[in-house]
């Protein structure tokens, strides 16, 4: 296949992936997305890791990323991001980019058009779609979709916890930021402590959600913007870390979860990957807890059940229709168990990255760096 033809088909694309941090208690999805692509039959492209910290493991895992580059933190804005990506493009050709972290999505949305002009494909939701799945807007979305969800309230005063029970918000409660982190709190002093922690880390507002006890089930799938749910993979979390992240899970085939997902995708008209986090309460009702606008960290299981969703996403970005995707029937019972292991990194590698922001030494024109 000629070089030009290679670049036309997604199997030959160079794919940039973010979220390649791999802390065992709360890994980003990026390395799992990379593994899915590595295991895609016929994939010949390079995988370019985009990270925010020099100790993000994906930068050094050659089985995940062929090269890696540091990005400015999302808080620095979309202009800085585009400038940095232009520098990266001097070193690495990028044909498609898969953002894997919630907080960076607004920046990537803002520069989607300039990136398209540079030949970089993205499949992102629209800003309004992203906003509709915000944690504080879930009740409105769920009312529209006909899906149950616990009540959520925005807080700007920790004094609420002194009389929350009288206002219909008895402990235990969940305290969350609008982006990440969630804690179950059982008393006013504990709630105040977590409230301050959220404010210090993420700022206002702080969200509280009524606590639901039950089995956590997750669904991930793709949307093409039409309202269809494509290639859904469902799991039940079997074991979680202190942060509630799954380190073991099993694929399931739950018609009720599937129907809830179908309704939410239809209501959102979502474009790109999505994860639904739901709890089945004591009465058997599925309650939506969160919607993540990206692949989950357990996405490698999608390869394990024959529904390699990162590969399917690239195929869609390359123009494939849902019925043309390589998606096996559900395979309930297939499990994953996450484990941590060390990778050895030389001083030279760290030094190169720290000095240049990239794992690649030479700065070659994009046309030579493929």
């Amino acid at each position, binding site marked *: 296949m000629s070089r030009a033809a290679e670049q036309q088909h997604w199997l030959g694309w160079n794919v940039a992936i973010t979220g390649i941090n791999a802390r065992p208690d709360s890994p980003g999805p990026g390395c799992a997305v990379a593994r899915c692509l590595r295991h895609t039959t016929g994939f010949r492209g390079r995988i370019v890791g985009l990270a925010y910290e020099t100790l993000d493991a994906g930068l050094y895992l050659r089985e995940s990323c062929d090269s890696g580059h540091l990005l400015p933190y999302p808080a620095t804005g979309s202009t800085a991001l585009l400038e940095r990506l232009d520098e990266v493009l001097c070193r690495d050709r990028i044909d498609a980019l898969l953002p894997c972290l919630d907080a960076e999505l607004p920046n990537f949305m803002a520069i989607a058009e300039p990136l398209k002009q540079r030949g970089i494909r993205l499949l992102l939701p629209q800003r309004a779609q992203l906003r509709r799945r915000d944690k504080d807007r879930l009740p409105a979305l769920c009312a529209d979709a006909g899906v149950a969800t616990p009540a959520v309230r925005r807080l700007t005063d920790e004094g609420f916890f002194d009389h929350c029970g009288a206002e219909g918000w008895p402990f235990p409660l969940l305290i969350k930021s609008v982006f990440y982190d969630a804690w179950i709190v059982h008393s006013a002093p504990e709630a105040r402590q977590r409230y301050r922690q959220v404010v210090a880390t993420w700022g206002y507002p702080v969200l509280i959600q009524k606590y639901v006890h039950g089995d956590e089930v997750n669904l991930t799938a793709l949307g093409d913007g039409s309202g269809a749910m494509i290639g859904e993979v469902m799991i*039940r979390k079997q074991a979680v870390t202190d942060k509630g992240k799954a380190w073991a*899970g099993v694929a*399931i085939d*739950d018609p009720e979860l599937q129907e809830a997902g179908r309704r939410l995708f239809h209501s959102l008209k979502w474009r790109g990957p999505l994860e639904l986090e739901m709890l089945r309460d004591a009465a058997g009702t599925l309650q939506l807890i969160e919607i993540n606008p990206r692949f989950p960290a357990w996405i490698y299981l999608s390869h394990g059940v024959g529904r390699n969703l990162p590969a399917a996403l690239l195929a869609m970005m390359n123009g494939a229709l849902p019925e043309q995707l390589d998606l096996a029937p559900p395979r309930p019972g297939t499990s994953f168990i996450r484990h941590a292991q060390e990778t050895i990194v030389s001083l030279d590698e760290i030094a190169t990255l720290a000095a240049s922001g990239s794992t690649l030494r030479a700065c070659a024109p994009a046309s030579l760096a493929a």
Partner: protein
Amino acid sequence: METPATRISHLKALVLNADGHAFDTRTGRSYRLNPPAQVALLMMQDGKSRPAIIAALVALCEQPSAVVETGVDGFFKQMASYVS
């Protein structure tokens, strides 16, 4: 207990292997079933009645009917509790 209070679609979501391991494809939960329970589950999935299941197990296990009835009713209760 005349009939098991478990929806047939939920029962059919249980996949039983030769070792007596039952996996609920709907919920992701796993169970271990002894041989009489395996027979009872397969018959429940086929829509067989309580008397039919008891009769089959009486013949298979060579136990008094009262003993089998107690065991079958206990199994129905567990199924209703875990699988419904």
